[in-house]
């Protein structure tokens, strides 16, 4: 029996910022329906790794596969990797939703307009179809009453829930979360995590960079610990939190949990 193709496969990934080696030989897979949480000290390359996965950040060598599509590059005759065209990169991006630390809602558009923008402009859906799904998604994230307001008047938690609805409107096969609660006031973190929990329960494939350790422990199928641009440890929450293989992992967890 052939093993099912992983949703996302990262192989021997390297990236430099100038002279800085920010990703060092990173390899892992994300299975369909899996929730992978990435933790680690700041500056360890977590966000850069996530941004490489939908090619908001270019990588220097290695491969990232989304399903059967190489992200950002294609093989030329003879196997050499060449930069993929814009249309192809954009197409693979539509297959994964991304949620940002600073929400990045479009401030000149209402909440509803934010959510229908991608489906109408990128997927060329009819306005009726896009609005119908947007309304369902806004109900799911608890923002039905905010559909016609501009993002500027929303709280951080509401903005982030709207941003999640915007990403989901593209009907992605996977969702990437880049520290989705780091910019929120503590009392607003819960409402965003609740939406993410329900997504996980629906079986969405998710890759989440976060500092919320309790959430990671609860929701993650596996946890990836980054340090200095490399993978320090990859395992189930039980392994990582209760019997970490590396002393540095234990040290990091002690530091963030107190």
């Amino acid at each position: 029996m052939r093993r099912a193709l992983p949703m996302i496969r990262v192989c021997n990934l390297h990236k430099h910022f100038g002279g800085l080696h920010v990703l060092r030989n990173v390899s892992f897979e994300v299975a369909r329906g899996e929730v992978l949480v990435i933790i680690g000290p700041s500056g360890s390359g977590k966000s850069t790794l996530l941004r490489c996965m939908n090619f908001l950040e270019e990588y220097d060598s290695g491969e990232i596969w989304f399903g059967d599509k190489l992200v950002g590059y294609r093989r030329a005759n003879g196997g050499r990797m060449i930069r993929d065209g814009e249309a192809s990169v954009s197409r693979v991006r539509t297959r994964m939703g991304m949620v940002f630390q600073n929400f990045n809602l479009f401030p000149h558009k209402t909440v509803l307009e934010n959510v229908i923008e991608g489906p109408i402009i990128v997927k060329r859906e009819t306005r009726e179809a896009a609005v119908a799904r947007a309304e369902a998604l806004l109900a799911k994230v608890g923002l039905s009453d905010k559909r016609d307001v501009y993002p500027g008047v929303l709280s951080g938690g509401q903005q982030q829930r709207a941003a999640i609805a915007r990403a989901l409107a593209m009907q992605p096969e996977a969702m990437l979360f880049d520290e989705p609660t780091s910019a929120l006031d503590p009392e607003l973190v819960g409402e965003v995590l609740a939406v993410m929990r329900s997504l996980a329960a629906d079986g969405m494939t998710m890759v989440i960079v976060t500092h919320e350790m309790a959430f990671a422990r609860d929701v993650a199928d596996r946890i990836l610990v980054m340090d200095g641009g490399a993978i320090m440890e990859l395992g189930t929450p039980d392994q990582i939190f209760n019997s970490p293989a590396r002393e540095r992992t234990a040290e990091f967890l002690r530091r963030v949990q107190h």
Partner: protein
Amino acid sequence: MSYNWYFQVVWDYRQVFIRGAAVTGELTIGALAIGLVLGLILGLLRSSRMRALRWPAALYIELFRSTPILVQLVWIYYALPILSGVQMGNLTSAAVGIGLYAAAYIAEIFRAGIQSIDRGQMDAAKSIGMRYGQAMRRIILPQAVRRMIPPLINEFATLVKLTTLGSVIAVNELLHEAENLINNTYRPLEVYTVLALTFAVLIFPFIYMSQRLERRWGGRS
């Protein structure tokens, strides 16, 4: 010291001002169209990530900002035809000259506007599968334009006033008409006073409009 103002003469020749204002308007619209289109293109090139696109735009902008517009106008009217064989009428020459000059400044306004938009907006647009052009048109530029309105109106006011330079290549705009009128009436004080007020009346509505727009859009970003 006393001077007997005699504005009646200006009123008698009001047709001259109306005619001049029409040409000034034409020249402004022509130069503005050239300046906006070319300025947008240059501004986009100037903010490109590719050096091969950025460089020529930067060269153009610096060249036009560092030479006097009067020299540019005269050059386009007298030198360009000799070099290229293309002879444009004086109104067209003036519109092209002022337009090319304004484009350099408008390009900088566009560039500054585009760069003032948070990088996360482009990231978000790309993350929902938009291409660069779609993201610019639908997400970046609509936000940038609002920030660009005050400097653009400023540039527009400057441009209206620059059209008076058309007089040196015999375009019948307001200043040129006024000078002709002075030669007929020997009333320079009255004519220049009314000329100045005419420009104020032409330009003020736009400045007022820009302030209104700024206030209306203020609350949304």
